[in-house]
């Protein structure tokens, strides 16, 4: 068994340890991704609205 797989095996407790760490990474990265996504959609919507307003003023 290589050192790496032994490390991940963690003396038989790999499932529990990586289950915990996996959840942590998933949740935190997921949270940031969702916020980032929201940020983009807000910006897109706001600039679309701004363009619409500008077009109205031109008329």
């Amino acid at each position, binding site marked *: 068994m290589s050192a790496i797989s032994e*490390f991940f095996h*963690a003396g038989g407790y790999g499932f*529990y340890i990586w289950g915990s*760490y996996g*959840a942590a990474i998933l*949740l*935190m990265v997921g949270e940031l991704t969702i916020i980032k996504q929201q940020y983009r959609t*807000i910006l897109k919507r*706001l600039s679309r609205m701004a363009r619409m307003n500008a077009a109205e003023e031109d008329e």
Partner: protein
Amino acid sequence: MSINWFKYSSPTTFYPLAGKMIPFFGWLTALLTIGGLYWGFFETPDTLSDQKEYYRIIYIHVGAAWMSMWLYIMMAAWALAGLVFQTRLSYMIASAIAPTGAIATFLALWTGAFWGKTSWGTWWDWDPRMTSELILLFLYMGYMALQSAIDDPRRADRAAALLALVGLVCVPIIFWSINCPNPNECAALHQTSKPGGGNMDPNILIAMLVVALAFWMYSFVAVLMRVRNIILERERHTTWVNEMLEDKQ
């Protein structure tokens, strides 16, 4: 002349400031996480006296649990600031903290369950600490539910802020009542199943603290990012947001 402390309490000035702070806290998070986990996995023994390698869950478990409580206190503090000074930004920060706090609480419960399975042989136990975390999760949920149920943002902010304060008053009482349901023999119920106290390996303690710090920095990143979203959403009618949008195009 005195310094204008309220200068940064305006969303207009806070928005770019938050933008500048996010990368800083982001790098700090990454650095502390890598450092703390390296220390925790490679500079520590594989087996403690009574616990095997699974004790390594502790780094994130304790970090998440600490953050869940700290974030609730911070949320209530910003809510109080909002009610006292009538600053919109305070409410925005308070409501930006809630989801991150709920995630930290959930994570603490999740990792607690994994740990419980290995160390006590059960996923869930009505251990006072775990029950308290569960209640904390309910409080976060209540805060977010109230906030989203009210259409008028002003009322939503203030009502949720008041709820956070009421929760803050009740939290110690709730935790205490769970900890000693029988007032005649309170002390006997305190569990010492977690590796703590004096006999902890200093290396583990260091790693734990560093990872907890990483969690803290992470919550700065998440909260600041979310505050920026909220500011944009709420201030969309103002001129400075529109000017900023024009600059970007």
